[in-house]
């Protein structure tokens, strides 16, 4: 690209002696000196107004070191520091961690995630989804397909080994085969899989260990001990402490046994009613409205459409009432109720947010709509009028 210099200069003698690079010795020395300089520093703060990214920064008053550090995530990668990280979560399980297992970051699907014997191809995780009893077989067959095993029928479930997961009876399997997760992940030529699948109320809980056969065989006892120790929630560190709620409910409604993540639960005929009180805004009104809409395959609404929702008062505060219809698929991808419906309320209470959600067959939900409104207005928690 350069234009050649005039020929007369090309004939000039080149300087002799040290190579040309040596002429830049001074530059090298200066840069090294600059790089090596260290020690105390003085600086001045720059000032700016309050910053605002996404949501305003939480402004919390003085807290103890224990509050600041004790619940920090074991592995920071999912703690909101990286752009792809999920929202920060608080530890919600207790368990005895086998010494050969290492805690890994949780994902949106894996509530607990472990690496085994420091091997990339051996892991165990806990996951959960909404689902009915029939989905136990579907998921068992998904695991069997991953191992290249023929699928089971309902009859095969009759003789299956059982165990306990979170205190609920669980199907326990121990299979072997060439493992391929079917999602482009690593394959294991000779793999072992030990798993528990529990169905409780309308939730499915999975605990699954996969790895090379010899590793899985050696870790079976650890797996069983871990499963036995797994509990929810953590006493004293409960991410969702139960609130003392009083209410007036129709006699036909059956109070459910305590369940994780709920303050109250009812079997309302063929429908399921949950009452949940979350600290703060529970993730935000818009996000929760759109989460519920997503469970019915409805498109999300925009922030400025929130005001179009029906207003509703409960516990002395104004909130919103939602009526949704469509194929209900809960938190999973399977449709649980083709002709489903939801009636519910989200009511911000200041420092808490109340969530009332009735889901089930459309006709049954609509029949209970008025009862649900009366029930929601009867809810009372100390400190909230």
């Amino acid at each position, binding site marked *: 690209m350069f234009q050649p210099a005039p020929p007369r200069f090309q004939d000039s003698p080149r300087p002799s002696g040290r190579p040309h690079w040596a002429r830049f010795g001074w530059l090298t020395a200066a840069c090294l000196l600059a790089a090596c300089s260290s020690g105390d520093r003085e600086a001045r703060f720059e000032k700016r107004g309050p910053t605002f990214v996404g949501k*305003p920064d939480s402004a919390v008053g003085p807290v103890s070191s224990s509050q600041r550090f004790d619940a920090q995530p074991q592995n920071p990668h999912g703690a909101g520091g990286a752009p792809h990280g999920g929202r920060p979560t608080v530890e919600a399980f207790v368990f005895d961690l086998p010494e050969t297992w290492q805690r890994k970051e949780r994902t949106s699907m894996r509530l607990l995630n472990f690496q085994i014997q420091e091997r990339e191809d051996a892991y165990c995780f806990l996951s959960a989804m909404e689902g009915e009893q029939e989905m136990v077989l579907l998921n068992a067959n998904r695991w069997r397909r991953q191992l290249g095993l023929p699928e089971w029928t309902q009859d095969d479930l009759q003789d299956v080994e059982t165990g306990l997961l979170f205190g609920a009876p669980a199907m326990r399997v121990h299979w072997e085969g060439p493992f391929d997760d079917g999602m482009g992940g690593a394959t294991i030529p000779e793999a072992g899989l030990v798993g528990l699948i529990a169905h409780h109320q309308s939730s499915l809980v999975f605990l699954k260990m996969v790895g090379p056969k010899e590793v899985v065989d050696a870790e079976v006892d650890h797996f069983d001990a871990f499963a036995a120790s797994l509990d929810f929630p953590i006493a004293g560190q409960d991410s969702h402490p139960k609130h003392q709620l009083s209410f007036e409910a129709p006699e036909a409604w059956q109070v459910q046994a305590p369940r994780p993540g709920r303050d109250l639960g009812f079997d309302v005929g063929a429908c399921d009613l949950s009452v949940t009180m979350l600290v703060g805004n529970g993730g935000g009104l818009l996000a929760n409205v759109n989460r519920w809409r997503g469970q019915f395959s409805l498109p999300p609404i925009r922030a400025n459409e929130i005001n179009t929702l029906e207003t509703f008062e409960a516990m002395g505060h104004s909130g919103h009432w939602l009526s949704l219809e469509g194929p209900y698929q809960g938190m999973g991808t399977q449709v649980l109720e083709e002709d489903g419906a939801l009636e519910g309320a989200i009511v911000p209470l200041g420092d808490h947010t109340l969530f009332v959600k009735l889901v089930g067959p459309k006709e049954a939900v609509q029949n209970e709509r008025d009862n649900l409104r009366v029930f929601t207005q009867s809810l009372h928690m100390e400190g909230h009028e």
Partner: protein
Amino acid sequence: MSAITNNAFVRWLGSYGLCVTILGGLFLLTALGTWAQAEEGLYAAQTKYFDSFFLTEHIPIFGKTLVVPLPGAVTLMALLAVNLFVGGFVRIRKNKRTFGVLVIHAGIGLLLLAGLVKREAANEGYVRLYEGEQATEYRSYHDWEVCVRELLPKPDQTGLVSGDEWFVDQVVFLGLEGDEVAMVRHPELPFDLHLRHFVPNARVHSEKSRDSSIYPVVDGYRVVPDPVDPEAERNFAALYAEVVAKGAPKDRRGRAGILAAMERYPFTVDQDGRLFAIELRKRRYSMPFTIEQVKFTMEEHPRTRIPSVYSSDILRKDLGAEEGDSVHISMNRPLREDGLVVFQSGYGPKDAPKGTPLFSIFAVVRNPSDRWPEYSCWVIAAGMLIAFGQRLVGYVNRQKRVLREEVTE
């Protein structure tokens, strides 16, 4: 040509040989950097090879390690600029015939200048927004800041709200070791802040923890270093801070606290009746406008969870304004405004079940020289058109002359 430009050293500075050597060196750095990226991570490789004056390459040979010092890309680019200036502007014959070449060199010079301006003045980060959320700042992927926020009571006295902020960039505290201290102050703050012991990736554990650490215990806790992750944005730094009286010397003790990127709450101090939160967090940069996420759209390839297309509809609003302009941002259609480029770079949470609200991730780049490479390409194209056009016209004229002479004979 003056005696200075005829000087052998100046001739060497503007020579083809040096140019080719520099280009060869840049090729070598590109190869080494690309190779290292797999092992060391993108950010570390970029810093080592392309944002450095000098570096040392460790090459294993026959069971031993050979340490080879190399010039970094910054040094080579600076040399290339000097080479271009001396050879392409100073020593080149300047006449009508070389005008096109001079224009080409000007274009290359603009390209190098764009790189320099980007290195010195550009920054980048990201904004993560759920639908309905908005932002007036973006966060760096890997740079840190220590921020002091004043906490003020809400007007209705129901809690606290963040007020003004005072911050220092990481250049102030990176690499603090041993008893080195960074003393930071501001006239409006009722205290000085002494910073010590920067750890690039760390957790904070109780002193009763079995994890070993050389760092001091503060209020029953101490920093436990973790291996630095090659992917810089995965590191969670920690730092020791001490709140001291204004103008206090280095060895004056004050109220100490650990600042950790993964803490749940900031370190708070009550000084002269004012409440402040002090935290170590990712560097934040202001935008001259607000973006509000209106709608995020993602489509997957049939029967897979692999996204085929995703995009965002946003509102671009003036600061403090309620209304704004609708803008559609997709993979190759960023928003360019006021020196900022806002790209659609991703979404999350990963592997979210169907129906889960998704957030949109925007990469934001502030680069004053964003368009300069394009301009330089136009300048270079114009220069080439002139240079080769002159050659073509000259050739055609010569051919005409030859033909005329043949006809005359």
